[in-house]
C-alpha cells in the first residue's frame, strides 16, 4: 500500500520536474529578452492604471460556504459508500435524511440569491 503511494508521488514528481525544466528554460534562459513595452498586460492598447492584483470582490463567496458544507458531507459519504450494501436500507434512509437537511440549505440559499450575483 505504501509502495502504491510512493509510485504516485514519483509520478507527480517526474511530471512536475519535466514541466518546470521546460518552463525554466523559457523563463530564465530565453534567447529573446522581453522589452519593457512588451511586458505591459494585454488591454487592447492602453496601459493599465493599476496592478491587476487587488481585493477582488468574490461575489460567489456565500456559495463557497455552501460548497464547504457539502464537502464535509462528502467526507462522510466515502466510508458510507463502502459499507452501504452490508448495512442495507437503513443506510439509505440515514443518508437520505442527511442530504435532505443539506438540501433545505440549498433551497434557502437559492431564495437568498446566493447563486446569482448580478
Amino acid at each position, binding site marked *: 500500500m505504501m509502495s502504491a503511494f510512493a509510485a504516485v508521488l514519483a509520478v507527480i514528481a517526474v511530471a512536475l520536474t519535466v514541466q518546470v525544466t521546460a518552463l525554466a528554460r523559457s523563463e530564465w534562459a530565453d534567447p529573446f529578452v522581453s522589452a519593457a*513595452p512588451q511586458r505591459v498586460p494585454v488591454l487592447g492598447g492602453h496601459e493599465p492604471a493599476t496592478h491587476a492584483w487587488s481585493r477582488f*470582490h468574490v461575489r460567489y463567496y456565500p456559495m463557497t460556504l455552501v460548497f464547504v458544507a457539502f464537502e464535509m458531507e462528502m467526507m462522510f459519504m466515502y466510508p458510507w459508500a463502502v459499507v452501504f450494501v452490508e448495512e442495507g436500507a437503513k443506510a439509505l434512509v440515514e443518508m437520505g435524511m442527511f442530504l435532505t437537511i443539506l438540501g433545505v440549505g440549498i433551497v434557502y440559499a437559492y431564495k437568498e440569491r446566493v447563486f446569482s450575483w448580478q
Partner: protein
Amino acid sequence: MAVTPIEVFVAAGADRWHEAQALRAHELVRLVPTPRHATVLLVAGTILESERAALDRVHDQLPHPREVVTWDEIAAAVDMADDVVDAVAFEIVGRADAVVADPTTSSPTRLPDEETHEWRDVGPFGQGGEGMMGGTPYGRAMAMTADDRDGLRLDRLQLRLGPFLGQLPGGLVADVALQGEVIQSIEFACAGSAPVVTGDRSVPVARRLLWLSHALHVQGLDAFAVRAARLARRSSGVGDDSRLASDFSSLRRRLRWTGLRSALRDVGDRDGVDTWARWSAHLDAISASLDGADPRLSPAGGSMPITAAELAETITGLTLTDAVSTIIGFDIDVPAMTTAAVEP
C-alpha cells in the same frame, strides 16, 4: 498544406474591421483573440492619431518572431476588390514563414524600451519602502477601494479597454470600472448622443455575415465562425453563391444545437429585448435578404437604435462576460461613434 495555420492578431480601425474578419474563412490563417498568441499583426483600416500609441503598444506585445502586414498596402496592389482577402492571406503566410526561418528579422520594438512605472523603493520623504505600503511599490499603483453593495468597501479595477481587442469591434474604447467581475460603471470614449447600432439600417448582407462570424467566435464557436466567414465571402462575390440561402439556413439549424439560445437568453435585457432576441433579428434579416431578390442588401430589421449612453446604461451592473455578449449582440457601428466624438 504542409504547415500549421499562421496565427494572426487583427488590429483594425473601425472602417475595415468587419472586412478583416473575412480572414477566418482561410485555412492558412487563424485569427487569435490576443496579441500574445500571434505571429503576425495585421493592421487594417484607418488608424486615428489617437490610436497610434495604442497600435504600437499592441505591436510590441506580440512575441518574437513577429511580422507586420498592412491590409491597405496589399489592397492597393491588387486589381479586384474581391481578391484582397486571398492576397492578404498569402502575404501573411509568406512573411510569417520568412520571419520564422530567420528570427533576426523580427519586427523591432516601436515604443521606447523603458519602464513607464519604475519600482521606487524609499522616497525622499520616507514614503514607499518595502512591501506594498505607500509610495508606488512594484511600479504601478494598487487599485483603490470604493464602496460596494451591502456596506462593503473593496477594490475597484479601473480599465481602459483599448481600440484593438479581439472581442470588441475595432476602434471601440471603453473605460470600465470593475468590482469583482461586475461592471460598476462604463463609459464609451465618444459622444453620448450618437446612435450606434446598425440593426435598423440596410447594410450589405456580407457585412451582417461578418458580424455573425465575429460574434460566434466570441461565444466560443470558432468552427461555426469559419462557416459564417465563408458564407460572407461567397455573398460578396468570391466563390459560388448559388446555394447561399440553403447553406445559411443549414448553418442556422446547426446553431440551434449549440445551446446558443440558452446561453444568450435574458442576457442584456433592455425593454424586454434580450441578446438572443437581437441575434434572432439579425439572423432573420440575413435569411430574408438571402431568400429575397437582392442578395446584396439586407432590409431594415433588427434592434432599435440606441445611443452610446443607453448602451452603457444597459451594461452597467452586468458581469464582464455578459457585458461583452451584450455589446456584441448589438451590431455596433463604431465609425458613427468615433465621428460623433469629433463633432460635439
